[in-house]
């Protein structure tokens, strides 16, 4: 079976501080995979390493193609859309310009315009606010904008970094519902990093547990959800 993403022996460091110590995992095409673990386990760093935002070594195969030496800007062009922690909003540009920026790596004008409408159909509030400066949006709206921006790439793989961070539980629910329909209807594969383990496991097909830069456990999300000992030991619920 062909994997969408295959990670083998991934190491990453910030300067002298090594964060990932030989990570292995893979993502099936069309699936939602989640990385779970405590603060400092290396979840965010893993996403950054995939995108070339930190120094990394090891194999990163996207559809079988080695991308561990590619620049961030080129990895985007291979269809990997990263929704970074902090949402990465372009605060001084309008909502619509933020979405246009999401399609910066594309050239097909007609496709971009129809995808803009698609994003607006998933997030009607963004359409209402499209001429507003993005810095004036609420946290939830900015998170929707970040997801919308990622969709504008028409990505094969979306990397989602703590999409629930700082949001009210109701808004979080709403956004996760949208993730589910995006995965089903638009066939976008996702790699989700999330503090809220129960929420992540509900959405995901597959889960990996990280501890200090290593995978300590992996399995089907359902199985982990039902395994009380793991839930208690690692996930705290």
């Amino acid at each position, binding site marked *: 079976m062909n994997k969408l993403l295959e990670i083998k022996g991934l190491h990453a460091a910030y300067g002298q501080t090594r964060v990932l110590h030989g990570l292995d995992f893979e993502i099936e095409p069309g699936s939602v995979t989640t990385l779970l673990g405590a603060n400092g386990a290396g979840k965010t760093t893993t996403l950054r390493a995939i995108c070339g935002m930190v120094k990394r070594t090891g194999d990163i195969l996207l559809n079988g193609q080695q991308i561990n030496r590619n620049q961030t800007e080129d990895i985007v062009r291979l269809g990997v859309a990263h929704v970074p922690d902090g949402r*990465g909003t372009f605060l001084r540009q309008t909502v619509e310009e933020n979405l246009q920026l999401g399609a910066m790596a594309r050239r097909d004008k007609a496709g971009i315009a129809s995808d803009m409408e698609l994003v607006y159909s998933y997030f009607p509030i963004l359409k209402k606010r499209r001429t507003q400066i993005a810095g004036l949006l609420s946290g939830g709206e900015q998170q929707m904008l970040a997801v919308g921006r990622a969709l504008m790439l028409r990505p094969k793989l979306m990397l989602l970094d703590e999409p629930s961070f700082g949001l009210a539980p109701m808004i979080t629910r709403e956004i996760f519902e949208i993730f589910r329909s995006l995965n089903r209807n638009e066939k976008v594969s996702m790699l989700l990093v999330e503090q809220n383990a129960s929420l992540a496991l509900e959405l995901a097909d597959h889960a990996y547990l990280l501890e200090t830069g290593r995978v300590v456990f992996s399995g089907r999300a359902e199985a982990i959800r039902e395994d009380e000992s793991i839930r208690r030991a690692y996930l705290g619920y």
Partner: protein
Amino acid sequence: MELLIQQVVAGIATGAIYACVALAVVMIYTAIGHLNFAQGEMAMFSTFIAWQLITWGVPYWVAFALTVAISFVGGVVIERLIFHPLANAPILSHVVLFIALLTILTSTAGFIWDFSIKTFPSPFGSAPLFGSSLISAHQAGMMGITLVLLIALFFFFRFTRVGLAMRAAADNPVSARLVGVRVSWMIALGWGMAAAIGAVAGMLVAPVVFLEPNMMLGILVYGFAGAVLGGLTSPGGAVLGGFLVGIIENLAGTFIPVIGGELKLTIALCIIVLVLVLKPGGLFGRATVQRV
């Protein structure tokens, strides 16, 4: 009253030059967060290139266009060769580089074209515009070209893909890379555009102040004053600030007896100090807030 209007108009005309320089300064400031002290000397060097082309017999407007193009490429090359490798260096390294660039350009210009004062032609001539005593044809031309330049830049940033990419790169460089914007090239592009705008300013002001390697020294101070007054983070504000500085300078020079012609430059410095003390963000800039 006649004198007042005349001085205001003259102020707007010189203000056009300050506006260009201020805009060039802001261009690089928004891209890399540092003031380019060599901006004036880059403009001076460009003007010498134009002078050389004209001396070789190239028609004025061809020389004008060629100089803008050469300056653009020069700006990009300076960024790629000198500043790009030091992108993450501390601010002092940048200041030293700017000053090095300044002295290198001044002495190279002096070496090639010597330090004697040269006249520079005006394409508009120095006759009064339509026989009016208010404004000369060259002054009107300065204002006109500046206006066209500003409008073109506005449209570029507002409505083109590259313009949007450049804004994004300045707004949030990390996020810009994540959507595929080649941020480091956007910075080089900013340098190129700053150099080209500076070249225009140099060629417009050279008929007035005459061409020599130190001709932009005072003008850069006025340009800084304009940029600071308008807000270093706001291109539109910098332009307005440039015009305001031109007007203030002219009025103060004429109507405050103590200042006269000699103390004019002091006004620019006073403006810088006053703005930084009273409203550090400038008229239209953002106040920077940093979490510590």
